[in-house]
């Protein structure tokens, strides 16, 4: 009699793998897209580095123009959304399709796919909302993609302290800031829309199962990548 040890690999769902790559085609496609997105953001970050360090004057000092505490909070929100996304993935892999369920002997209820994905959507939408508020306030104070608007509050501050506010290179600063954060915000918005679509068409009708949850895994990869990019952008745009 032979004994075959059957162990469930928690990290690899049982889908038919494509020959060669060893993974199913949806996941492979997302990874190839992410590889191209790495190059896209590299082009943006590379341009930023060249513009900043090749500029004739000093960039505005960190925190002089941008609201770092608010963006720090936003970063925290995006990190939380990444955790809730991975919890959604783990929940459906364990067959937890429900929203919340009581666990005997525990005070907190156990969250299922419906709960964790909703938290991710809320955090993602929260991130975009805070970014929109930040943009409105910055433009209101006079920080535009073209630099400091004449007669604005920031233009007055910059005239009083041109080094702190990087007056000579304000146009470069504004255009690179809005381009980089804008494209990232666009990615987050696309992610939130995609998750909403999945939530209403697949998650609520309980179409995912522990045997097939490809959509959750693929959108999860995208979402974590968006988080990863923001981690880099937050440091180089807001802190350095």
């Amino acid at each position, binding site marked *: 009699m032979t004994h075959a040890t059957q162990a469930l690999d*928690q990290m690899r769902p049982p889908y038919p793998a494509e020959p*060669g790559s060893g993974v199913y085609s949806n996941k492979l496609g997302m990874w190839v897209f992410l590889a191209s997105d790495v190059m896209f953001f590299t082009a943006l970050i590379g341009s930023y580095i060249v513009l900043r360090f090749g500029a004739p004057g000093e960039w505005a000092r960190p925190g002089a123009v941008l609201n770092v505490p608010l963006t720090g909070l936003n970063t925290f929100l995006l990190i939380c959304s990444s955790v809730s996304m991975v919890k959604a993935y783990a929940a459906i892999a364990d067959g937890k399709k429900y929203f919340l369920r009581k666990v005997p002997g525990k005070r907190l209820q156990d969250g299922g796919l419906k709960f964790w994905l909703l938290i991710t959507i809320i955090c993602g939408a929260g991130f975009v909302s805070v970014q929109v508020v930040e943009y409105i306030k910055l433009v209101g104070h006079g920080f535009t993609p073209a630099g400091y608007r004449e007669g604005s509050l920031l233009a007055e501050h910059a005239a009083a302290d041109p080094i702190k506010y990087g007056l000579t290179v304000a146009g470069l600063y504004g255009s690179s800031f809005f381009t980089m954060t804008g494209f990232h915000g666009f990615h987050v918005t696309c992610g939130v829309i995609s998750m909403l679509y999945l939530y209403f068409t697949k998650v609520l009708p309980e179409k995912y199962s522990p045997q097939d949850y490809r959509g959750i895994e693929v959108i999860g990869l995208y979402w974590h990548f968006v988080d990863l990019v923001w981690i880099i952008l937050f440091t180089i745009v807001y802190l350095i």
Partner: protein
Amino acid sequence: MTTPTTHVRPNYMLIWLYLFVMTIAEVLLAFELPVARNLKLILLLILAIWKAMLVALFFMHLKFERWRLRLIFIVPLPLAAILVTTVIMEKVW
């Protein structure tokens, strides 16, 4: 007899805690701690890359994927470095 390799899920909440603590450390380093500018820049970049690695390895599960899949993500990184270096060198010259 076959024994498939088993990967146990990482502790996601612990990774979240690391990311949270490192984000606070970054903000403190940038605004509160009296550190030389160049050292501060290097430390901030190290922290950012460390956080990004945590997300890629544990949340995107790259640590548990096959090498042929990891390569898809790794190959653009040296290309990205070449792109940035070339553009910077062109500017310097």
